[in-house]
């Protein structure tokens, strides 16, 4: 079970850091055409607005990926906790575990 938790944590970290790395590249690549278009004086203002919208959408999308990742991680934590509790031996009325058979 501890290994399963470890695997879950590793996948969570990989998605979190992978999404951040891809977002950085996506933002950097998308900035190039905007930079070129903004060299035209008449397009500077509208392209600037468009880039802001694009960047906001980008942050929202990758932020959503990270949010879902955290939600799945939290849900799996609860599920694993419940599973572990069910694996524990039943207790008697005083809360003591049953005695092993002789």
């Amino acid at each position, binding site marked *: 079970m*501890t*290994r399963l*938790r*470890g*695997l879950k*944590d*590793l996948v969570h*970290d990989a998605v979190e850091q992978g999404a951040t*790395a891809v977002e*950085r*590249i996506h933002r*950097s*690549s998308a900035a190039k055409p905007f930079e070129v278009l903004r060299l035209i004086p008449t397009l500077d203002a509208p392209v600037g607005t468009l880039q802001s919208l694009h960047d906001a959408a980008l942050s929202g999308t990758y932020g959503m990926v990270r949010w879902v990742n955290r939600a799945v991680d939290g849900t799996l934590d609860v599920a694993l906790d419940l599973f572990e509790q069910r694996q524990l031996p039943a207790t008697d009325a005083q809360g003591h575990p049953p005695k092993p058979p002789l």
Partner: protein
Amino acid sequence: MTTSEAAESPDSEPGFPVVSSSPDEAVPPAPPKPRVGKVDLALGVLNGVLGDYLHRQNNALATPMGLYHEGRALPVEREALRSAHPHSTGRVALWVHGLAVTEAVWAFPAEPTTDYGSLLERDAGFTPLYLRYNTGLHISDNGEALAHLLQRLVAEFPVPITELVLVGYSMGGLVLRSACHIASEACLPWLSLVRRSYSIGVPHFGSPLERMGTVVAQVLRAVPNPYTRLVADVVDLRSSGVKDLGVARLRRQDWEDTTSPCTPLLPPPGIAHHLIVGALGEQGKWLSAMFGDGVVSLASASGRTGPRDTSPLFPPENVKVVAGIDHVSLAHHAEVYARLRESLAVEVA
């Protein structure tokens, strides 16, 4: 010489699993199962690549250092050790594996329950103890942990240890050298029990493959492109243990300050160091000279900085080159075992 040939040679007792050839038996017996499961093998690889990260994150997939017996953790406690080795005579051999593997690397592929340790126990009476550790951690960290583990082992072993033979394969040999250095500085008494140590394919002066990885990462990072930088980030993900292998950083100060050159750590005195070196081709041929055993160069595995080094770390007469063998096979090859056994026999005589 194959493992079976080694077992059948006149000067050795047959010790490998024997298959009954009775004509009455319709169903052939199942081949022996490996002692280490596939999950553990996968974790060995994961620890080699990301072990330091897993350790920092307190991830349960990080392998804690410990002794293992038949694929299971063996607590360093008197009763557990007695139960695992009831017939121990106090002559102990510690087997330390290399990067991104587990103690399963010692097992002969055709006979997974047989390894150098079990053969040496049969032939020379050395109780085998197998170490498993997180190969992604710094070599010095593993060396420090091993030095203290051996201290506990000497105190807890059910019979007084009279001799401790250290055998390291690949990175394992560097971990052993680091542990000996720490034991020497801290005056840990277990070091006085070590009279012989064996290095099998150990990159005493680093591995050119890792140095190539460092150069590739630097080149990719220098290119002003987000994609190549991402690839450089991925290349740089490799663990501290892997990075230490580049120039064999055995002490903490070696990796804390990488700006100054890493001075070689002299082996502790009073120990006979034996080196077994693999070579892809015949000794002296270009293939061996260029690639060594495919991972470690001949010079590095022989404890020399280069082919013309006149002051090697270890006595040249203790270096044995096994021709026609690659790095991985060094951990489970009948010819390597023959050299080990021969060397131990000479020492005993």
